[in-house]
């Protein structure tokens, strides 16, 4: 049995996460987080790296294929020894499967093959392809809202819903763990969610700035040209 007090000092050295869409950035920088995480044992650090490698979007390149993503997820599910962390991983990969199916349908694609995605829900998705939430509203209450947001093209609302649900899954599965590795891993996974929101905001701001700059300077394309 894992020591429930293994990482007391590490957990208390981590600042609390603020509300997700209120905080402008994560409670501490990645550099400081990495410094604190040096207290992890070699095995726990490897497990955390596996989790992050599978769940963190920056770990996926543009050239990553669907088959590679599936293989990475399945390898991670096999490699993580803690049942609670495997549950987090499985739930979040199932969530990604459902979101990928929504996007696939919106893009005009057909139903997925039987072995597609995670959690053995591909058959039900394919069987209910034209249903708004693939007939899976009961086990996944957020899915109807997500389908509606995607249909309306509300990308911001969709992103907020996905991040909120991802954080809820992580918190729910790590409940009852206060000072052990599961608490540390849950903290880092939630940190990644906050970081993604902060980065998304920065990217949106940059895009908007460029759009405004282009609009303002559109008629003056030769602004830096020598007279």
């Amino acid at each position, binding site marked *: 049995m894992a020591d429930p*007090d293994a990482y*007391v*000092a590490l*957990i*208390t*050295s981590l*600042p609390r996460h603020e509300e997700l869409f209120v905080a402008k950035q994560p409670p501490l920088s990645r550099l400081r987080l990495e410094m604190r995480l040096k207290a992890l044992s070699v095995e726990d650090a490897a497990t955390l790296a596996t989790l992050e490698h599978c769940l963190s979007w920056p770990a996926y390149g543009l050239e990553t294929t669907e088959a590679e993503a599936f293989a990475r997820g399945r390898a991670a599910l096999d490699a993580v020894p803690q049942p609670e962390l495997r549950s987090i991983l499985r739930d979040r990969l199932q969530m990604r499967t459902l979101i990928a199916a929504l996007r696939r349908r919106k893009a005009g694609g057909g139903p997925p093959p039987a072995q597609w995605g995670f959690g053995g829900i591909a058959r039900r998705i394919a069987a209910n392809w034209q249903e708004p939430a693939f007939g899976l509203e009961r086990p996944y209450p957020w899915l109807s809202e997500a389908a509606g947001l995607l249909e309306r093209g509300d990308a911001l609302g969709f992103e907020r819903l996905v991040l909120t649900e991802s954080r809820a899954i992580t918190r729910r599965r790590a409940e009852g763990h*206060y*000072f052990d590795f599961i608490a540390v891993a849950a903290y880092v996974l939630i940190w990644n969610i906050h970081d993604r929101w902060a980065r998304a905001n920065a990217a949106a701001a940059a895009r908007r700035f460029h759009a405004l700059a282009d609009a303002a300077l559109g008629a003056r394309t030769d602004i830096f040209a020598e007279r």
Partner: protein
Amino acid sequence: MNELVLALGWLGIYSPVALGACGSAIGCAIAGQAAIGAMVETEGGYGRFVGMSALPSTMVIYGIVIMFSLNRAVTPENAGALFGIGFMAGIAFFVTGVWQGRACASAVNAAKEKPEIFGLSLAPAAIIEGFAVFAFVFALVISGGIQ
């Protein structure tokens, strides 16, 4: 047979100290690690965190007092009573020491974010202390009846 009974009597006399010391050591270690972690993150109030982490040390003090109240010549007639009272009191001090340490660690974790809840966050640890006091007081009361 008598030797075993006498040995259990001596075990009962020393158990409150030994188990109380173990409970205090583990509890203080857990709460102390929490205090150290909080000191890394905060800019002040270190003394309060260290003070919180020392709360489980009372378990060994209760154990010492119980040991003195039980300490007497061990005979086949009183050995069972010494063992029962001493050993069970020791178990109570051990368990409450460990869990009080965890309660203190949680209190440190909460109080570092919101210093205004420092007093309230100590309530669970104080309630656990109350249970240890019950075990202590009633061990003293019934040890008075041992011949």
